[in-house]
């Protein structure tokens, strides 16, 4: 009887989780939906405590207490700019939990002699996905946090070694299904998975981490699915499937926005080969720089303005200054929108969060596909800290390494104002023709200071 009630509680929790994801489809319903999901989580946990297999609560209390103490700062103290590494870290946690459960259940099954082939298969997949995700996520965390170098680490025969490791993982997995009770093979498999996680992220550069983090999200989900199969628990299967697919969908979307195939991100080690790429400028010509006073005057009398924030904006922590400038232009009667490229931040949707935090209302944050048609009727487009995502070479120059990449059509605007630190190139090292276009004026200097100065002069104009 208790067992049935527990399963019904899981069913209800699963319903609330799916409802929460549906609520995430709209910003005004999202928050309430997630609160319901948290409620569902509470119900599922409470119900589990009545499980017949649980005979002592002392270690459960210890683990829960430690987890809560560790989780609170991860929820409340982490700044929004550090979101990508924070997400990577929690993938590592989730995958570690799955891996440890897999190992534990295997040991119990082994000593009890109750191992069935299908259970071993599920446990094997669980520790494989889990192991790769634990170390892979920790590597991603290290690269994003700056503990490890963001540059890709490559060595000769790297892909061959990775392939060999992967094959060894598969072999030990198949071996285990044939002979389930071999603790030695199981241990080897765990070690191989953990190694594979390190080696798989090693050659991937810091700028490609968003794709990796999304993909590891997917693996963590699959590890949860395998757990569900191993211990006959449907809610784990459902949640794992949702998690796995969400990660997969996001990583495909991110690689598309970066103009890279999935395989190229994972095995290409892009950053190491950039130096010999074609650095030919097609148009050539001089950048024309402008003064704060002139630029501010133009902004003050513009009717339609689009802000184009890039990652450089987040680096110089100038989101608030951008929003203040936007508010001042709006106060003078101009219409201000914010154009968000999918890879403007360091993870999917990151720039939206950073600007929302600075107080930009979400109905002013417009996705690339929706805003691209608006540039034609825009008086001034202000580019801050963006380069590759606005480079018209993506449409016009077939020899450019970024050719085919979806970009914000800033070049359609009536005039363009580019705030830039210096005359350097973007992360892909490609020249940008937009900067030498006659309708573009460059305002060199620190983005934060420039935005502040522009605001002051717009107010006075």
């Amino acid at each position, binding site marked *: 009887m208790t067992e049935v009630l527990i399963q019904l509680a899981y069913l209800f929790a699963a319903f609330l989780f799916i409802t929460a994801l549906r609520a995430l489809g709209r910003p005004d319903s999202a928050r309430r939906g997630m609160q319901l999901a948290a409620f569902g989580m509470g119900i599922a946990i409470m119900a589990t405590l009545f499980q017949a297999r649980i005979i002592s609560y002392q270690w459960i209390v210890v683990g829960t207490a430690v987890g809560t103490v560790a989780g609170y700062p991860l929820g409340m103290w982490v700044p929004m700019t550090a979101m990508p590494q924070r997400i990577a870290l929690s993938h590592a946690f989730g995958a570690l939990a799955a891996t440890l459960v897999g190992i534990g259940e295997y040991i119990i099954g082994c000593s009890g002699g109750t191992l069935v082939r299908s259970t071993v298969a599920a446990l094997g997949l669980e520790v494989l996905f889990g192991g790769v995700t634990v170390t892979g996520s920790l590597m991603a965390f290290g690269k994003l946090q700056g503990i490890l170098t963001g540059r890709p680490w490559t060595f000769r025969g790297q892909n061959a070694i990775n392939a060999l490791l992967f094959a060894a993982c598969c072999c030990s997995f198949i071996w285990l299904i044939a002979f389930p009770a071999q603790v030695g093979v199981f241990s080897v498999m765990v070690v191989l998975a953990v190694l594979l996680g390190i080696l798989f992220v090693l050659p991937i550069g810091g700028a490609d981490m968003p794709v990796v983090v999304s993909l590891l999200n997917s693996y963590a989900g699959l590890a949860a699915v395998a757990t569900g199969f191993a211990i006959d628990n449907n809610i784990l299967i459902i949640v794992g499937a949702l998690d796995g697919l969400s990660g997969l969908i996001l990583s495909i979307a991110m690689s598309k926005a970066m103009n890279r195939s999935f395989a190229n991100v994972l095995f290409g080690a892009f950053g190491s080969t950039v130096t010999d790429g074609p650095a030919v400028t097609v148009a050539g010509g001089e950048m024309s720089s402008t003064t704060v006073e002139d630029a501010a005057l133009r902004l003050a009398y513009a009717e339609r303005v689009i802000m184009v924030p890039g990652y450089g904006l987040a680096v110089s922590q100038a989101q608030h200054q951008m929003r203040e400038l936007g508010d001042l232009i709006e106060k003078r009667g101009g219409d201000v929108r914010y154009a968000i490229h999918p890879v403007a931040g360091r993870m999917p949707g990151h720039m939206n969060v950073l600007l929302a935090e600075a107080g930009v209302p979400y109905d002013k944050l417009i*996705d690339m596909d929706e805003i691209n048609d608006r540039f034609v009727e825009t008086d001034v487009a202000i580019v801050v800290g963006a380069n590759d995502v606005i480079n018209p070479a993506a449409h016009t120059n077939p020899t450019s390494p970024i050719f085919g990449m979806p970009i914000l059509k800033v070049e359609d605007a009536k005039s363009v104002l580019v705030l830039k630190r210096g005359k350097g190139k973007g992360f892909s090292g490609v020249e940008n023709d937009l900067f030498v276009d006659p309708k573009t004026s460059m305002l060199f200097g620190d983005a934060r200071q420039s935005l502040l100065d522009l605001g002051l002069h717009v107010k006075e104009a």
Partner: protein
Amino acid sequence: MPSTTVIQLFVFMLAGFVGVQTINRIPPLLHTPLMAATNAISGISLVASLVLAGSGEGVLATVLGTIAVACAMANIVGGFLITDRMLSMFRRTRTAVTDNSNSGASSAGTSS
């Protein structure tokens, strides 16, 4: 293959379809909260960790289970808190944009 496994495969497949339908409807605007949310929800693996930690089947299993409980719990607590924190930042345009004192106060607060 036991029949429960087959039923579980059905559950997996159907959940997969629901997942694709649901997640494709989520706008890029909310993709970061989505990742934080799936992180929090995937903390449901806590239910497996709880059973392992409390089943009293040997020291090793208990230790592994306890660590797993701590990890999953950290994801649940941290995940739901940060998702809520993020979603609370997404606000619509205020209707009274012309309210000078209000916007002046907020900009002074944020620039400090």
